[in-house]
């Protein structure tokens, strides 16, 4: 069973629908500690700001059980968009500490006034796979839909799973052991998102 963590952030229906589309039906949207306690995968969605996300996680009362499942039981976890940023230690966007499961921080895109690039980075973009991983296998052109103003910077290069280019080359997927993160929205990225969700469900 995949538990999508319900902490009051955004509409996750398209995530559930995409899992269904690739034949994964055992997906629940929950903040129930007993359910999170026995699921075999965790998906952490999220839109909005970093502090708001951390406060909602606290209010939902799920941080302790998430720490146990991810760090002790080693259950595979996938953070999407803000959900990936929350896996880091901190963010330029706020003052709350993150979950800190990955030795990384979340930084704001900074472009000079002469730059034609807008913030947020919004739209389709290609990604480049870096290190071997269990979510996306062979290297081939893949594009995903992005909406974000902040990006994750890892301390350890080995945690960088894929990068994309927007003014700078930035980390768009992370992986360390059972912990995965994607900055883009797989649920809005057609077959590329389906491939990722399907492979996650098989971990």
């Amino acid at each position, binding site marked *: 069973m995949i538990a999508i963590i319900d902490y009051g952030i955004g509409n996750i229906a398209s995530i559930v629908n995409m899992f269904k589309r690739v034949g994964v039906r055992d997906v629940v949207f929950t903040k129930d500690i007993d359910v999170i306690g026995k699921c075999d995968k965790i998906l952490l969605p999220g839109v909005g700001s970093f502090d708001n996300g951390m406060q909602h996680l606290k209010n939902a009362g799920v941080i302790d059980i998430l720490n146990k499942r991810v760090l002790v039981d080693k259950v595979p976890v996938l953070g999407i968009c803000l959900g990936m940023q929350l896996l880091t230690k901190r963010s330029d966007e706020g003052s709350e500490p993150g979950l800190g499961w990955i030795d990384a921080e979340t930084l704001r895109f900074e472009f000079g006034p002469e730059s034609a690039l807008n913030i947020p980075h*919004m739209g389709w973009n290609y990604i480049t796979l870096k290190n071997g991983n269990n979510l996306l296998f062979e290297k081939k052109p893949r594009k995903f839909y992005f909406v974000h103003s902040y990006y994750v910077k890892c301390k350890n290069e080995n945690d960088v799973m894929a990068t994309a280019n927007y003014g700078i080359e930035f980390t768009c997927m992370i992986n360390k052991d059972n912990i995965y993160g994607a900055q883009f929205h797989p649920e809005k990225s057609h077959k590329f998102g389906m491939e990722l969700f399907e492979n996650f469900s098989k971990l």
Partner: protein
Amino acid sequence: MVIKRVMPCLLFNGKALVKTVSFKNPAYIGDPINAIKIYNEKEVDELILLDINATIEKREPNFEKIKEYASECFMPFTYGGGVSKIEHFQKLFSLGVEKVAVNSLLFTNPELVKLAVKNYGSQSIIGFVDFKFSKGTLIVFNRAGYTYKGTIQEYCHYLQHSIGVGEIVFQNVDKEGTWSGLDHEKIKELLKSVKVPVITIGGANNAADIKKCLYETGVNAVAIGSMAVYQKKDMGVLIRFPKRELMITE
């Protein structure tokens, strides 16, 4: 790298999909969910859904239906129609809409659009510019009957610099639903007055027309109406989408 885009632009009457010709004679097309499922299969880049009756009938957006459609979209989803309060923007984004298109609101309450740009970012707000020829001159004229007093270039300047929209759609009303071909020359001319990404719609008749428009005018995206819902000109309803490789070379 900016990736060129092609997307269906669906017209909704609050209950079902319809298609008009130069804003007139709405013909019944079918259920949006069915269409969205087919566009998922076709892997369209984005989807635009416009409730063309909401403003005219003084209705709010049909949030229940929009939630259902956003949940079904495996691609970015743009909604427009009947948005008249800041709460409407908030609600649409919370339902999983990526971008909100505004048109009449730019005439009735431009300050609200400015506030939406401030709150949600320019990338989330699309300014829709409908234009047609009237007595030999180009005028901005939308479905609800609002017209802009100045030139279309002045209007584009206003949308970008006073309002701050992140994207502009140019819709050629004379060509809407006519299959007479995109007006490449006009699009090229209009692009001179715009810095933000531009989507153009109105008159597309085949994949080659779309490809030529994307690569010869410099426009970022083409939206299609009739081509996405009819078999051919003057033929029956068929939810479809041209093969990507015939339109986009990456």
